[in-house]
């Protein structure tokens, strides 16, 4: 299929959307004037820090603040007993047949027991940062070791130490579709393998930070680096105050990737503010973040795959075990995503899946870009690639043969309702990459690998997701957008301006976006699950459209014109006899009692909560499809891998801002490459050994090749103008693409992440039969 045959829908004449306009926040960031959460200082501000457990599993036998309180500059110390409601509750859906969903909980500050290395036990508040360092050291806590369990498979065995009362099994999800045994019986080829992924850290450049104070109306204000301003509800519950008395302000976030989806500093800053009555700042050190922030789930996946001689995938028998760490956080949902995505973007008529997420005394695990849907790409893509190789077939053709299409159903039962350009993305990367490169010298082996994926965008449908936005004109015709969306670097705020500009005609530099204030901006929900462009974009689209129509109808009535013949531009309302300047337009509206502002709420699709036996017509709103290609070179004596070429293609539906879209694709692919080759939070017997960024190997510019981002536009996404979400999808394919490329180069496949040089040598040894 040549380039012209790759399907892409052309947008109607769009002026602003679909144009590579510079983001309005980028200018401030590039000038250095953006103030992140930790850049804020308030007069009279105190400093807060946590004392954390150095042990993975223990009873807390003594906590003594007396010496700490004697350190000059220490203002107060809080223990768990000082927290009005020392519990954070998390829903664990689908795990019970009772009406009320199961809940899991953790303490804000541990009182009797600690379950992971780094669990917070005390909060110290001081006048200076020096005093904070001293005060934390002087705080005495004694522990009595309790047996711990550090492997999820051990944790499910009889007699394993219990991390929480009631056993270590947190959640299970099962899928049974079709007749798996029959499929294996008729298969021409069966491929069976076990894959393993590691604990990964978000490693955003901005560590967790926030400043809190009580304002003139007695409202607790928290200006924090967060993906979710709605945590004001959780803070209110912890403090036992009404929700109206807590306000979360979200400035621009220096990277989130799911790591700022749960609360981080919020409850502690709030507690310190309430206790002292003074403003308080808390900033985590990088080392503290690496230690204690919840990680990406480590997963073990066993795949047994049945295929026909022509490469068609007949069945998958899949078993997934995830390490839920010491506390539930979002582990049950992460596993749910893994289960739903586990067969990949393919039509597979028979699937049996058994999966479980299990408590251990390892670091807690929670949301990270890809959210379970990411880890399973290694499983399903390695399997289909291996099927192709063993049958001597072209890996690209085998993928296309089984590619899911509009109307087909995923194993869980959900039908894909939008156009699937999977085959086009495969063709696009192959075309862009050109022929395989030659090896550069003796002892170097070259390989090429591709990997395709699907990743949902929009939240689970039974969560009744919604997003609200308000747009309104100022008297001079400039425009304000208010939306609770948190901007974590993906251009969330600026795309709203583009959408508003497209519909209302206002020039981009006359639009101001105010976001991320739980009291002052309409709530837009979490900046997670690749949902913001879809949800808030649609909310702004709706609000702007309502406002435009309202204004045009008012002008139509005033001028005796047909509303359809009128157009809104930056200069005013055009049509009929000429252009009515905007200030006059707004006056006319005023005299006719027509509001020059509009609030809209966009509601996501509805659905029923799933049970443990997964079967549903609809779990997610929709999915984004894509394919990556990598050419790499292996040094066969050292196992070092050098990436020569990387191409990533996704169907983004409609690119609201092409530069932003490419940026998301490159950034997510880079993060996936990091997980593939370099990154690991190393935990041994519950002890987190990764003590700094010198050890946590985030890829540098010299470790990556140019990542060529290509996007297709089917126009069939559920977002504004047919957009699909793109924040998470590109993180999935890299590990599988790289594993397949190494398989291509050396003849054996790596199955464990990260693919270290040593693991590459193991593959080389295996291929040589030694």
């Amino acid at each position, binding site marked *: 299929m040549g380039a012209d045959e790759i399907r892409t829908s052309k947008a109607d004449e769009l002026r602003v959307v679909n144009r*590579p306009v*510079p*983001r309005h*926040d*980028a*200018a*401030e*960031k*590039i*000038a*250095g*004037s*953006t*103030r*992140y959460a*930790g*850049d804020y*200082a308030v007069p009279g501000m105190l400093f807060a820090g946590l004392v954390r457990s150095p042990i993975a599993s223990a009873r807390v036998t003594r906590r003594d603040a007396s010496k700490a309180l004697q350190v000059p500059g220490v203002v107060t110390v809080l223990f768990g007993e000082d927290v009005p409601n020392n519990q954070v509750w998390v829903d664990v859906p689908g795990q019970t047949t009772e009406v009320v969903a199961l809940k899991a909980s953790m303490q804000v500050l541990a009182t009797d027991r600690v379950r992971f290395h780094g669990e917070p036990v005390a909060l110290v508040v001081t006048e200076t940062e*020096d005093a904070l360092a001293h005060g934390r050291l002087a705080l005495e806590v004694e522990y009595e070791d309790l047996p711990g369990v550090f492997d999820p498979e051990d944790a499910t065995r009889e007699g394993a130490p219990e991390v929480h009362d009631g056993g270590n099994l947190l959640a299970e999800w099962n899928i049974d579709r079709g007749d798996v045994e029959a499929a294996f019986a008729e298969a021409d080829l069966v491929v069976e393998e076990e894959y393993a992924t590691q604990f990964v850290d*978000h*490693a*955003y*450049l*901005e*560590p967790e930070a926030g400043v809190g104070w009580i304002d003139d109306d007695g409202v607790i204000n928290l200006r924090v680096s967060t993906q979710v301003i709605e945590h004001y509800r959780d803070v209110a519950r912890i403090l036992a105050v009404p929700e109206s008395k807590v306000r979360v302000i979200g400035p*621009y*976030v*220096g*990277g989130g*990737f799911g790591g700022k989806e749960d609360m981080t500093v919020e409850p502690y800053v709030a507690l310190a503010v309430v206790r002292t009555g003074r403003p308080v700042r808390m*900033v985590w*050190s*990088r*080392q503290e973040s690496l230690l204690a922030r919840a990680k990406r789930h480590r997963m073990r996946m066993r795949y047994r795959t049945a295929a026909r001689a022509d490469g068609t995938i007949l069945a998958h028998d899949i078993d997934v075990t995830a390490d839920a760490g010491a506390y539930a956080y979002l582990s049950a949902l992460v596993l749910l995503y893994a289960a739903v995505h586990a067969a990949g973007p393919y039509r597979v008529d028979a699937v049996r899946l058994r999966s479980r997420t299990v408590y251990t005394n390892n670091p807690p695990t929670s949301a990270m870009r890809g959210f379970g849907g990411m880890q399973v790409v290694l499983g399903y893509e390695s399997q289909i690639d291996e099927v192709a190789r063993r049958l001597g077939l072209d890996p690209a053709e085998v993928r296309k043969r089984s590619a899911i299409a509009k109307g087909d159903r995923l194993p869980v039962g959900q039908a894909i309702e939008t156009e699937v350009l999977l085959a086009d993305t495969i063709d696009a990367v192959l075309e862009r990459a050109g022929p395989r490169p030659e090896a550069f010298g003796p002892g170097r082996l070259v390989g090429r690998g591709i990997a395709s994926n699907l990743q949902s965008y929009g939240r689970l449908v039974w969560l009744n997701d919604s997003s609200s936005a308000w747009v309104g004109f100022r008297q001079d015709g400039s425009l304000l957008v208010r939306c609770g969306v948190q901007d*974590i*670097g*993906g*251009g969330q705020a600026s795309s709203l301006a583009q959408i508003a500009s497209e519909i209302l005609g206002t020039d981009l530099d006359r639009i101001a976006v105010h976001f991320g204030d739980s009291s002052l901006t309409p709530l837009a929900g979490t900046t997670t699950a690749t949902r913001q462009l879809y949800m808030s974009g649609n909310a702004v689209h709706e609000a702007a459209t309502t406002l435009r129509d309202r204004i045009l109808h008012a002008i139509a009535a005033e001028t005796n014109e047909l509303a359809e013949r009128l157009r809104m531009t930056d200069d005013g309302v055009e049509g009929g006899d000429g252009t009515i300047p905007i200030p006059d337009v707004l006056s006319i509206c005023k005299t006719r009692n027509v509001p020059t502002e509009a609030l809209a709420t966009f509601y996501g699709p509805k659905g029923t909560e799933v049970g443990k036996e997964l079967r549903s017509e609809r779990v997610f709103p929709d999915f984004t499809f894509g394919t990556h290609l990598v050419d790499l070179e292996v040094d066969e004596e050292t196992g070092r891998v050098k990436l020569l070429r990387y191409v990533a293609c996704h169907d983004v539906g409609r690119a609201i801002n092409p*530069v*932003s879209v*490419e*940026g998301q694709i*490159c*950034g997510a*692919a*880079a*993060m996936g490459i990091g997980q593939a080759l370099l990154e690991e939070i190393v935990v041994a017997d519950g002890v987190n050994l990764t003590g*700094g*960024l*010198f050890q946590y190997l*985030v890829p*540098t*510019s*010299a*470790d*990556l090749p*140019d*990542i*060529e*981002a290509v996007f297709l536009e089917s126009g069939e996404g559920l977002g504004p103008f047919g957009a699909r979400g793109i924040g998470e999808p590109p993180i999935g394919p890299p590990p599988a693409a790289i594993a397949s490329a190494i398989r291509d180069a050396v003849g054996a496949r790596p199955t464990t992440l990260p693919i270290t040089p040593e693991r590459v040598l193991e593959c080389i040894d295996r291929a040589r039969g030694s």
Partner: protein
Amino acid sequence: MSEPLTVTLSVNGRDVTRTVPSHTTLLAWLRDHASIYDPKPGCGEGVCGACTVLVDGEPVSGCLVLAAQVDGAEVRTLSGLSRGVELTSLQRAFLERGAAQCGFCTPGMLMVATALLEEGRPLDRDEIRDAIHGNLCRCTGYQGIVSAIADVAGGGEGDGR
């Protein structure tokens, strides 16, 4: 034990004098004492580069230098680059290439790139990648950043994409 000492630095063209505890790093001196917030604390290990500032024209980690060590030096940070008035050609290239997403690495990245470009030698994309590898970015995959620097370096192949 720790006597305060007085450090004078020329910061973005202005002489600034502050008396600080002797254990104050250059980064803390700038942020907590001189209200210069653009260099960021990212790791305290000198690995991430978010605190990169130019001292006498050369890039340093603000977190790995004591203010006292560089008393009398000329310090340049991002907020002084354009003096909030007109962006440099590098800054304009960053804007066009989408080289800033969350923006947290951007001050350090722009300073190391500014120092690199001020050396005046021609640079290809690999040399750029090598020169800036000490500044981590988690959002962009470095693609826009390398292209922006290449655009200005005039190596001609700004567009490896």
